[in-house]
């Protein structure tokens, strides 16, 4: 029996971005159906349409064979569609019971009947073997438990179709295993699950059928039994290329960046960087690999001066950056490609020229007396647009109207031409199209070799870290757990084991490699 069908869905965002184009797919009762695709392939948008959070311009939705119009999450819930979002939709200061019953609270004498809430939640949790304490406060739960609260929320509302948006991204392997057991239990009881994921092995293990999205289009639906991981990944990405970057051997010069016993506590008081030390020399790229969320962003923020550190020191060209202003650090040789290009890396409502000139508009060579030298700015911007092949109407076009790849080119163009001798690149190619990514990587390597500058490359993209870096470190739980002298000699398997914590190097093994 068909539980759900989406037919010919087209969604265009107000800024003109076409997120879904004529997508059709269907889910059977008692089925776990995977929805896979690259970042930005349109999976999340499609599910938002299904859950009534976005309205499509075209297309029809059928639930249980009947055509329906879903205009709000309330509509979706009423039709038996529940969703577990990537970012949890929980009210932290309330209890599990209050969260589960939010919006459907039982009442007594006109007031919320807290006891009934707890009873109802506890029963539900026990029925599906979730093992939750209904009276616990949500903000004190582990991530895995929070996710269970989310699933419980959907079930409490009578969801027959459950959408899970990258549910395992935040879980430990143990928690993932548990989740899978529970999902299989739900499947047996007649529920359908739409499982959005990046992780092929999970899709292969858990799901019955898979639908593949690519660049907003649907690239077919297949039973899992007909596919293997290799075929599936080819359907998703569409190209089968291993990145190869030709580069001469490094000739390391004097140290540029020295990180010594760096320590950092997060706002919540967690140790997020634990005695990290390494040195980067002129003419080399040091790569840092690791699963996302293991302290990479704190490391990047501490080195770039965006956050203060709590112990140890960072020396740039021999001088500590501690207590110095960012403008001062930049002047003494730092340039920084931030992870979040839209909110940190650029001003989306200002022109390309304003963005390119942002770090140098007030340098003496770009000024005419006390005024900005417009001609120089124009000349520099036009030169960079040409050199980096930024496709745009002209230099005055606002950044927000460019594509993701071109926005990143603007950021990269600015940071590589700032005259710095150290480039901190944090996820420089994430979410960027293939061509641009390749160009950025090659440019990074060329700059480092030709101009003898130093670079720190933080990336969760293994292909990138392995090919671009000269030396390679692995970060896990805020610590350096492995160091390799030649990145190109490391295999993915070996690296994966260090990243996952299956193996760890001792300080002695890493001696001399940091």
């Amino acid at each position, binding site marked *: 029996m068909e539980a759900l069908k989406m037919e010919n869905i087209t969604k265009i965002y107000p800024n003109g971005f076409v997120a879904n184009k004529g997508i059709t797919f269907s889910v059977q009762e008692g089925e776990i159906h995977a929805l896979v695709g690259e970042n930005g392939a349109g999976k999340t948008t499609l599910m938002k349409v299904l859950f009534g959070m976005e309205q499509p311009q075209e297309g029809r939705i059928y639930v249980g064979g009947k055509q329906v119009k879903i205009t709000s999450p309330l509509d979706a819930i009423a039709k038996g569609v529940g969703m577990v979002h990537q970012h949890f939709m929980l009210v932290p200061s309330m209890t599990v019971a209050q969260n589960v019953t939010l919006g459907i609270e039982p009442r007594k004498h006109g007031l919320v009947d807290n006891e009934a809430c707890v009873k109802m939640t506890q029963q539900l949790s026990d029925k599906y073997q979730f093992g939750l304490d209904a009276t616990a406060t949500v903000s004190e739960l582990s991530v895995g438990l929070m996710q269970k609260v989310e699933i419980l929320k959907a079930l409490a509302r009578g969801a027959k179709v459950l959408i899970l948006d990258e549910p395992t991204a935040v879980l430990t392997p143990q928690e993932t295993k548990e989740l899978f057991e529970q999902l299989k239990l739900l499947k047996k009881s007649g529920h359908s699950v739409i499982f959005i994921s990046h992780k092929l092995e999970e899709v292969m293990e858990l799901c019955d059928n898979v639908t593949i999205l690519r660049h907003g289009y649907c690239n077919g639906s297949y039973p899992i039994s007909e596919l293997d991981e290799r075929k599936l990944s080819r359907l998703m990405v569409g190209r089968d290329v291993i990145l190869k970057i030709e580069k001469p051997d490094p000739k390391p010069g004097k140290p540029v960046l020295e990180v010594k016993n760096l320590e950092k506590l997060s706002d919540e008081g967690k140790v997020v960087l634990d005695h990290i030390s390494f040195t980067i020399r002129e003419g080399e790229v040091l790569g840092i690999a690791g699963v996302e969320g293991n302290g990479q962003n704190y490391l990047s923020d501490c080195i770039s001066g965006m956050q203060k550190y709590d112990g140890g020191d960072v020396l740039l060209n021999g001088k500590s950056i501690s207590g110095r202003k960012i403008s001062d650090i930049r002047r003494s040789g730092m340039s920084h490609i931030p992870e979040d290009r839209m909110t940190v890396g650029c001003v989306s409502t200002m022109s390309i020229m304003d963005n390119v000139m942002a770090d140098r508009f007030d340098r003496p060579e770009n000024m005419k007396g006390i005024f*900005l030298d417009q001609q120089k700015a124009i000349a520099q911007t036009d030169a960079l647009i040409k050199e980096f092949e930024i496709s745009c109407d002209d230099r005055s076009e606002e950044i927000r*109207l460019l594509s993701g790849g071109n926005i990143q080119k603007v950021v990269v163009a600015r940071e590589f031409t700032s005259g710095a001798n150290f480039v901190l690149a944090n996820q420089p190619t994430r979410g960027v199209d293939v061509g641009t990514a390749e160009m950025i990587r090659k440019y990074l390597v060329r700059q480092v070799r030709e101009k003898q500058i130093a670079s720190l490359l933080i990336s969760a993209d293994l292909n990138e870290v392995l090919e671009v870096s000269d030396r390679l470190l692995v970060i896990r739980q805020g610590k350096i757990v492995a160091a390799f002298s030649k990145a190109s000699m490391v295999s993915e398997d070996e690296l994966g084991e260090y990243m996952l914590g299956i193996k760890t190097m001792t300080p002695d093994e890493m001696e001399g490699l940091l």
Partner: protein
Amino acid sequence: MNKTKRIENTFDVVRILIAILLAYLIALIILALISDDPWNVISLFIIGPFNSKKHVGDIFTLMIPLVFTGLCMCFVYAINKFNLAGEGAVNLGGCLAACVAIALRDTAVPGWIAIILCIIVGALAGMLSTAIPAIADQVFHADVCVISLMLNYILLYFTTYILKNVIKDQGASVTASYKLGRKVKLANLIPGTQIHIGLLIALACVVFVAILFYKMPFGYKMRAVGVNPSFARYIGIPVGSTIILSQVIGGAFAGMGGSVQILGMFPRYKWESLTGYGFDGLMIAVLARKNPVLVPLSAFLIAYIRTGASLVATKTQIPPEFVSIIQGIIIVLVAAEMFLSGWKKRLIFSAAKKSLKEKEAKA
């Protein structure tokens, strides 16, 4: 993609015009409803400001303080901090300028020096006024808008205290200061009107602010901080000091506006209530979309509306306060993104669809 931008730009202009027309229409309906002689009142309100040299002069005269406060609010609005102390700054600037003028009246100091001193004191007073909320906001994270509104009351009572206890002329029939003296009176520009040199000073300030905004490093910093503070921090712009400094500079213009207004228009200082120029200034900045070059234009519009209203008030007793209703409606409509957005969305959607088709046709 450039199509999207073009649609947005056209749309913005049309939207503001429609908002103004709509607000006007509402005002006219109200006037028509409450008046015994609606046609006369409406024509007085709309055509009145242009029907004599004096009235046109009144528009330009009223424009002067509004340009100053409009510039002030451009700074405030550009960095997205609703510091409304510009309102009180007008009073403080005017009051202190009057004090200076009175102190210098019987001395040998030449007139032009006295005038410059008065305006400088006014500017300093304005800077002080806006600096207090700005610092409270940046250093202590107290809400800048609430603090500035409270401060306006304090500034008002402080200036009335000075008026009544320090510079009050006991001989005058109403509460008013001593005469400011002829030598500080700003010279008349066009005979037969009240337009004074202040207009030129105001326009000079507009030029200066426009250069500061678009041709000098500080303006760049300010705009970047206003749109995206985390970017500004990342790129090395000192965010906190830029935020404070731009509010302080803005305050200087509001204070100057107060002193110029006092020197240009009145023989004595007698403000006992807030002038409303500061709040008008916010609206002018909103209409001008933070662009100082457009400030004189939107100040002219507000001055025109206000002149019409006071003409109506003198002929019919209808209080000029009804203008604030028009202003409220205009601000809300201009600020409301959704106002006419369905129309905009349809335009952009069809443009996107068209370019998609073109792409497909090519492929």
